[in-house]
């Protein structure tokens, strides 16, 4: 029984990681329809930012807290530059965008190798986050997992509120729903695209900081995550945040349960089969955005 609860929490925390990784993509891919293969490298940029900051700031806890906003800005700015220099010129050509951003992803990986070396680097996690808390019933819950869960939920809440309540959020939604109409209404769509890309990439940076607590920090860390992130957004439904949130947690729990009952490899197969079956049934994903757009 204890193990089962432990597994449920493991599933939720796998979901939180998926969500954090996919959230930025839900903006750039989900809202803007840009297939950005370099999204994983923005995660990597966030992780390396944590590493660099730790070289100069003593105190693992403080450097992690500082890393959160800094990584957001570093990854966001990288993303914005990518948008300005390349993606903007390819908006009507999705396949070209895919290839170009794939190339950019390889270049960013090589850049990381040249700067930091091929081997993984280590960061020191604050002592508070390497322990665990005991929950009644003999169950322990890892602190780093709790932190990531909290961070993912905070990011989703902030993003949802921003999209709903701020003028910028309204403009983003307007552009997503009907770009032409938004443009003739006086919304500077190019600038909105840029800002959206900044936010989406910045969220990837945030995910990178969180992942230093869980996994390796190296040039190829992003590529391991990008497929899962795309899956979450596709299954969740393009243009909707809530779809991504639900799907991330559902896949997490499915993965953890499947893995507990079988093996990791088989669990992956179960998850992929479930996704394929689901998309056969609902190719548009869990939720769809209903608009009057003719596009």
């Amino acid at each position, binding site marked *: 029984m204890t*193990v089962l609860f432990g597994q449920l929490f493991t599933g939720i925390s796998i979901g939180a*990681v998926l969500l954090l990784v996919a959230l930025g993509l839900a903006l750039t891919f989900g809202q803007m329809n840009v297939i950005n293969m370099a999204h994983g490298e923005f995660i990597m940029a966030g992780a390396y930012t944590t590493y660099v900051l730790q070289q100069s700031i003593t105190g693992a806890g403080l450097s992690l807290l500082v890393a959160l906003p800094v990584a957001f800005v570093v990854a966001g700015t990288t993303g914005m530059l990518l948008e300005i220099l390349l993606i903007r010129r390819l908006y009507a050509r999705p396949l070209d965008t895919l290839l170009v951003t794939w190339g950019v992803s390889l270049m960013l990986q090589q850049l990381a190798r040249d700067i930091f070396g091929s*081997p*993984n680097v280590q960061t020191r996690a604050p002592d508070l*986050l390497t322990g*665990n808390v005991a929950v009644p019933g003999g169950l322990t819950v890892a602190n780093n997992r709790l932190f990531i869960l909290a961070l993912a939920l905070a990011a989703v809440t902030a993003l949802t509120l921003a999209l709903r309540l701020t003028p910028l959020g309204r403009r983003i939604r307007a552009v997503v729903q009907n770009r032409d109409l938004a443009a003739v209404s006086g919304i500077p769509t190019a600038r909105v695209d840029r800002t959206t890309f900044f936010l989406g990439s910045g969220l990837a940076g945030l995910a990178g900081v969180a992942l230093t607590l869980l996994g390796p*920090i*190296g040039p190829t860390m992003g590529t*391991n995550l990008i497929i899962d992130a795309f899956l979450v957004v596709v299954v969740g439904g393009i243009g909707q945040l809530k779809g991504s949130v639900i799907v991330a947690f559902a896949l997490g729990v499915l993965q953890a349960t499947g893995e507990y009952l079988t093996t*990791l490899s088989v669990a992956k197969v179960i998850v992929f089969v479930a996704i394929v079956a689901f998309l056969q049934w609902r190719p548009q994903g869990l939720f769809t955005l209903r608009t009057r757009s003719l596009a």
Partner: protein
Amino acid sequence: MTLVAAVAMTACGSRTSAEGGAAGVTADVSGDTVKVGLLNSLSGTMAISEVTVRDAIMLAVEEINAAGGVLGKKIQPVGEDGASDWPTFAEKAEKLISEDRVAAVFGCWTSASRKAVKPVFEKNKALLFYPVQYEGLEQSPYIFYTGATTNQQIVPGLDYLKAQGTTSVYLVGSDYVFPRTANKIIKAYAAANGMTVVGEDYAPLGSTEFGTIVNKVKSSGAKAVFNTLNGDSNVAFFKEYKSAGLTAAAMPVVSVSIAEEEVKGIGTQYLEGQLTAWNYYQTTPGAANNRFVAAYKAKYGADKPTSDPMEAAYVSVHLWKAMVEKAGAFDVERVRGASDGITFDAPEGLVTVDGRTQHIAKTARIGRIGADGLITEVWNSGKPVAPDPYLKTYPWASGLS
């Protein structure tokens, strides 16, 4: 590395036509240099580890050249990138043998890459020196294995656990040939030695989500974990292990793929106190190792650690030189014939080539990872262990091969 690239390019420019055939390709040793092939992944997921092996091979080549070369000829290294891709390894091996006509090739890391190039070397009757510990149960006449086979690493690791009173182990490994074979051996050993294997889990290479596996390990109540994970998975596994509240004191993990270089990438915060099984550590005492460590750091940087596979690669070049000089020729069959009994005062201690198995006798060492990221020996086999790739001298292993 630029030097290697330049050498590789000139080698391509001046290639001679291959005239091999059934008798195999003969190496081109007509000039005042002798070419050797360096086949390692300089890109892709294995680059992390294989670049250090390439560096160690280059160090040995430079040392030998500075001392006058082999049979009066300077070694001219021809570098190729296996790109962490097994078909590429086979293709580059073919190129090194038939186009560059090298006298020997040094390299490969994963068993998958070795299995991919093995038929190429056997077809061409060319020599490969393979420097990494592996799963045993192999003995190609055209490969010299300078890393540990199972009875020089995994079996001593199990002997150590048994001596510590460990009665149950949990097996965690990556999902490919080495961990699967290693775990088959471990299970046979456990059955014969009163140890219980309470669980066995595999993660795909590159997998970084270990929540469930660590949960299973924790609830199994095992006395120790035998870890054959490779690459990035180790980072995620040890981070999870610590957050779950598991410690080296309560449930030690014995790893066979974590050397000094990997320790740096995982973090001593997570690894301190855990155990490793190898034949060499940077801290291994002895004049030969002091020289090796000093020379390596002088060439590649003071922060660069030396590790077991690097040492085995470095040793392999020196062993080849000794074999060639004993044979008095670069001819592959004569070099093989001369190999038995060749010794070298290696950084890990004296090593001896066993001509029959083409493996080398090595001292087994169990080490504990310290807070400084270095590994200190806690036990060694006392003397070099004779290689036994098919575990023929172990009755419990009779059903394995």
